[in-house]
């Protein structure tokens, strides 16, 4: 038993070493500034592994931590994750409550002193229509944002509850309000003004370079439609989110690097 435990420890250490070498090698080439994940497939993963749906979401959170750490080691400046859609409130009350409870716990866990965000100097932005969240989750979100406000090395956008159309509408609303306050002057609302009022932009996020959707579904599902419709690499992975790992992520970064090098050669 001790030998087996020892061998397992050795295997984990070796895997971790190899992963660090791979990430170190990838960081020698062009690295995306902003990566967004649509974390799809938690429920199908749970069903496939005879687990409860709530366990699927918990495992999904572990994957989020893992991938966030990989991105931060790669020196990606901004990571966004689609944690909860406004449409997801239509799911069963049990599942919604479980997700809200998970969000409340994990938000504060992530921002604790010494934990991941603190370790890498990451500022957390909770992006979305937070007024729709239950009071306890909204308070946890605000507290988590406050705890990381001083961090400047990178940004983590946790999109919940979010839809792109809601974000665009809010941005248009802000632009119109600002213009109405300056009566008499010419109306100068451009697409750049709307871009500046998006929640991601207000949080300091750079332009989106890669959008990854897992679970094999090839849809955008109302996520970052404004941000991803021009120069973003859209990547659809067939792996369910809780199973998503470095082996799935490496080809995505390699494709990005090839694209950047090819663009440099052409110009």
């Amino acid at each position, binding site marked *: 038993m001790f030998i087996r435990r020892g061998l397992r420890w050795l295997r984990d250490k070796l895997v971790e070493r190899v992963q660090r070498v791979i990430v170190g090698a990838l960081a*020698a080439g062009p690295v995306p500034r902003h990566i967004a994940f649509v974390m799809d497939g938690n429920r199908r993963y749970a069903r496939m592994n005879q687990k409860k749906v709530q366990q699927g979401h918990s495992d999904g959170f572990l994957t989020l931590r893992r991938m966030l750490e990989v991105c931060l080691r790669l020196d990606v400046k901004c990571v966004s994750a689609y944690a909860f859609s406004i449409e997801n409130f239509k799911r069963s009350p049990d599942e919604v409550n479980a997700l809200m409870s998970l969000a409340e716990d994990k938000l504060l866990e992530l921002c604790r002193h010494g934990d991941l965000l603190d370790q890498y100097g990451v500022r957390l932005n909770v992006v979305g229509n937070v007024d729709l969240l239950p009071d306890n989750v909204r308070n946890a979100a605000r507290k988590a944002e406050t705890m990381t406000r001083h961090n400047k090395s990178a940004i983590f956008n946790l999109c919940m509850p979010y839809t792109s159309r*809601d974000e665009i*509408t809010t941005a248009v*609303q802000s632009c*119109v309000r600002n213009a109405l306050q300056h009566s008499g002057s010419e109306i100068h*609302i451009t*697409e750049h003004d709307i871009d500046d009022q998006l929640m991601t932009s207000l949080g300091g996020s750079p332009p989106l370079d890669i959008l990854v959707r897992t679970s094999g579904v090839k849809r955008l599902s109302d996520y970052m439609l404004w941000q991803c419709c021009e120069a973003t690499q859209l990547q659809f992975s067939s792996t369910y989110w809780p199973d998503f790992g470095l082996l799935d992520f490496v080809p995505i970064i*390699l494709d990005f690097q090839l694209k950047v090098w090819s663009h440099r050669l052409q110009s």
Partner: protein
Amino acid sequence: MPLIASFFLRLIHFIYAVVIALHSFWKRRTMISPLPIGAPRRRIPKHLALLFVVDSNSNAEQAETALVESVVNAVEWCRTAGIENLTVYEESGLLISCSQRIYDSIPIQLQECSSDSEIDYPLTPPPSDYSESRSLSPQHQDNTFIPSVVLRIPASPPSKPSRRSIIRRTRKRKDATNSHELQSQKPMLLFLVSREASKPAIASAARYLVQLHRNLQLPSTGSKPPFRLSVDELNLLMESKCVMLHI
């Protein structure tokens, strides 16, 4: 260290290129050919959108010719497959500038008779002024904020103009093949759009909202509630230039 990391990165890229090449080769060897375009399918999209990217090395005439040919092909395939709405996007607006040429290039094919149909003769004869002219020319949509050119591609007309038009009806309406044929006989809508239909259209809607609210000249007594906009309201505005006002 950076040199070693760079070397490792090149090695990883080399291995990746080999894996991709082998994977592509294997996929080509084991690929199952798709069914013919006109084969009956369980599900057909109601609306298909295609994004065309023009080769930056080609000149304007070559680009236009390639675009027209590609759009005409896409229209024919959609008509055969039974797709009723086709949107074609080209960023710079080249499609819109050659919309007339696209329209003139789309063939209107004659409908073929099927042998196992029964023929119903209508009680009243058709209008005798049937002409073989095409339907209306490309139209610019001006009732939405989404600028586009719409081409209504008619269903195939009768083969000969006559005082009596013959309506053919198949025996088995529920048969997939027959319903597929009926679908392909419906008129089709072709939308040609450019980048102007994207973010600039939303900015245009925002400017319209400002103008509208300024023109309303709401009473200044008391505090005015701040302007509010919902997702559904913006959607309605974009698609139909209709606004729900909260006064």
